[in-house]
């Protein structure tokens, strides 16, 4: 197996490392690579910070085959490198789709399990890992075993959301959900401020919900944005065309305060005052940013951070304004800020979701970003909230035990599965996840 020297960057581009990468194209090559140089597996590198960075890593994207599919029950078995979009494109015409999907179709099955991702239907469908029936895990010795919640409850729960620390996920069996149509009917409404937003989420009965926040709005407009509630329409599924790409890094002013402010104002006003219904193909609704490949280059060479936390219901109304205020006054906000309700569904010991509100904000990587991120992390901890490790680039290691109450169990299980610590990534080392 030849290795490739490359600079690895998380999706945000703010953190990077010089790495040696293997990319096995067949099963036997993966096994040989692991036995020769045990190291973490990475997927499509859609985690923002350093969850997917390591000095040696195995790129899993070429091990992307479907293994079997039952058209009656929707039970799919697939290799870890298949992407969410591939699953949607292949099975939607047969009436099935992943039960829950992150906001990008480029994420791989392995990555979605290792971060136990959530979607716009988390309040109903739970997290990705909860739909995994079993998976095949390969240890640093190249030996593999099939595990499920029944057969190995602890190891299974340490693997779902386990950041790849228990071993390389080779393949998984998962239950797909029914996909009744190829398009979504999306109801869009303006939300005047944060109060209106939180009320709307608490009252909403929609299957899919997501809120876009204007993080540049201050004062009485603070927390304004657009609420999207969606259900399936009746049309057939149509395969998306190939996306256009941002060819190179944008100049620094692309994400400057006036540009973002103007963009956000237009984006807000685009929805009429009394709301509207629009129809969108599935991929446009679920993966709105995938239409432009490498959109992260719009942030220029220095990149950006994403901060995402979840706050418990009773703390959110008090803490969110402090967070919005901190971001708005920093001038580092970007157009991409999302507010959502999460349910209680979680599949693993280190899963992110908990009942409450989740806020995700992209923050331009200028010198003031560090202080802002520290403030946001502190606010989240203080409120009994949790920061999402798939996005993180700035958390204090000391906050981890409070935010992740099952950390001790996780550490114990991982120690057994990988005593040589072969699978530790940059994030795991930075936050002392393994203890």
């Amino acid at each position, binding site marked *: 197996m*030849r*290795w*490739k*020297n490359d600079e690895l960057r998380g999706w945000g581009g703010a953190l990077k490392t010089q790495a040696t*990468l293997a*990319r096995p*194209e*067949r*099963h*036997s*090559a993966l096994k040989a690579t692991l036995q020769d140089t045990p190291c973490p597996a990475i997927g499509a590198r859609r985690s923002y910070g350093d969850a997917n960075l390591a000095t040696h890593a195995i790129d899993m994207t*070429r091990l992307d*085959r*479907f*293994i*079997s*599919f039952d058209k009656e029950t929707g039970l799919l078995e697939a290799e870890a490198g298949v992407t969410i979009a591939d699953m949607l494109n*292949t099975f939607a015409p047969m009436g099935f789709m992943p039960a829950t999907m992150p906001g990008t179709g480029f994420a791989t099955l392995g990555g979605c399990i290792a971060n136990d991702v959530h979607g716009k239907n988390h309040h109903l469908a739970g997290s990705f890992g909860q739909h995994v029936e079993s998976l095949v895990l390969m240890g640093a010795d190249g030996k593999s075993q099939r595990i499920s919640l029944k057969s190995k409850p602890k190891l299974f729960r340490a693997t779902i959301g386990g950041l790849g620390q228990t071993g390389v996920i080779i393949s998984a069996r998962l239950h797909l959900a029914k996909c009744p149509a190829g398009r979504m009917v999306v109801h869009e409404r303006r939300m005047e401020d944060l109060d209106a937003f939180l009320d709307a989420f608490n009252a909403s009965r929609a299957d899919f919900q997501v809120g876009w926040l204007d993080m540049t709005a201050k004062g009485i407009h603070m927390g304004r944005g657009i609420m999207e509630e969606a259900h399936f329409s009746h049309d057939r599924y149509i395969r998306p065309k190939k996306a256009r790409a941002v060819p190179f890094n944008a100049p620094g002013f692309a994400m400057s305060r006036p540009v973002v402010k103007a963009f956000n104002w237009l984006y807000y006003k685009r929805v009429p005052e009394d709301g509207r219904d629009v129809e969108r193909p599935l991929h446009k609704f679920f993966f709105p940013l995938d239409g432009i490949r490498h959109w992260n280059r719009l942030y220029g060479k220095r990149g950006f951070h994403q901060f995402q936390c979840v706050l418990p219901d009773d703390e959110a109304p008090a803490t969110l304004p402090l967070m919005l205020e901190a971001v708005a006054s920093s001038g580092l906000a970007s157009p991409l800020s999302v507010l959502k309700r999460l349910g209680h569904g979680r599949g693993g010991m280190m899963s992110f979701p908990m009942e409450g509100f989740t806020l995700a904000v992209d923050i331009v990587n200028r010198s003031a970003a560090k202080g802002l991120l520290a403030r946001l992390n502190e606010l989240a901890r203080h409120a009994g909230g949790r920061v999402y490790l798939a996005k993180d680039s700035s958390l204090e290691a000391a906050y981890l035990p409070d935010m992740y109450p099952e950390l001790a169990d996780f550490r114990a299980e991982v120690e057994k599965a990988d005593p040589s610590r072969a699978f530790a990534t940059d994030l795991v080392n930075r936050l002392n996840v393994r203890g």
Partner: protein
Amino acid sequence: MQGSPTPNKWIILGATSAIARAFARQCAEQGASLLLLGRDLPELKRIAADCAVRGALDAQAMALDARKPGQFQAIIERLKTSSDILNAAVFVGSMPEQAAIDADPGLIDGVVQDSFTGPARFLHLLAPLLEERGKGTIIGVGSVAGDRGRVGNYVYGAAKAGFATYLSGLRNRLGRKGVHVITVKPGFVDTSMTWGIEGMFLVASPEDIAASLHKAVVKKRNVVYTPFFWRYIMLIIRLIPEFIFKKLSI
């Protein structure tokens, strides 16, 4: 089945290659039958299963080693019983480092067998079946490396050049019988063959190369450079006079 058109069967040699896998998938999505050939049978079976899930009418795997032409007849016999429209695509090839070849010239035979004579012997056995049916397409994957011998990989290049000349003759023979032959010359493609090699540029994805092959089938192209701009790059490289070229290391 009455009324429905005769299905296409694609026989894919070297089906474990990343380009071949992408090509096979696209065939599967069009509902074709597949016969996947190569040395790594467990892996071929995985690819066949994937193609079946993606919509292939039928997907089978069989062992084929380009260096063991004695095995070929059994596969041909099996194909004789098929009533599908037969098509073949050859992706077999190997590119040991030139330095390894310089150290052990015995490797030359293997390179020539993998990239030229093995596939040529298979196609020679297959050709009468297509000729008899009067339809079908054969795709042979050569390389831009076959257009001119370069210090870095001229043994591989020589084998690909031999294969290209063979394909040109085969096209000449089969064209008059309704069978179309396409020679494909890819530039750099992002596969295990090029992974981690320094100095790669304008690297294309296997999916894009595979899509260009399907387009070439529909348009009945004869010689295809892919991505297209390699036609112009190679035109320039071929035009460099030999007395200059011999001093270059490109």
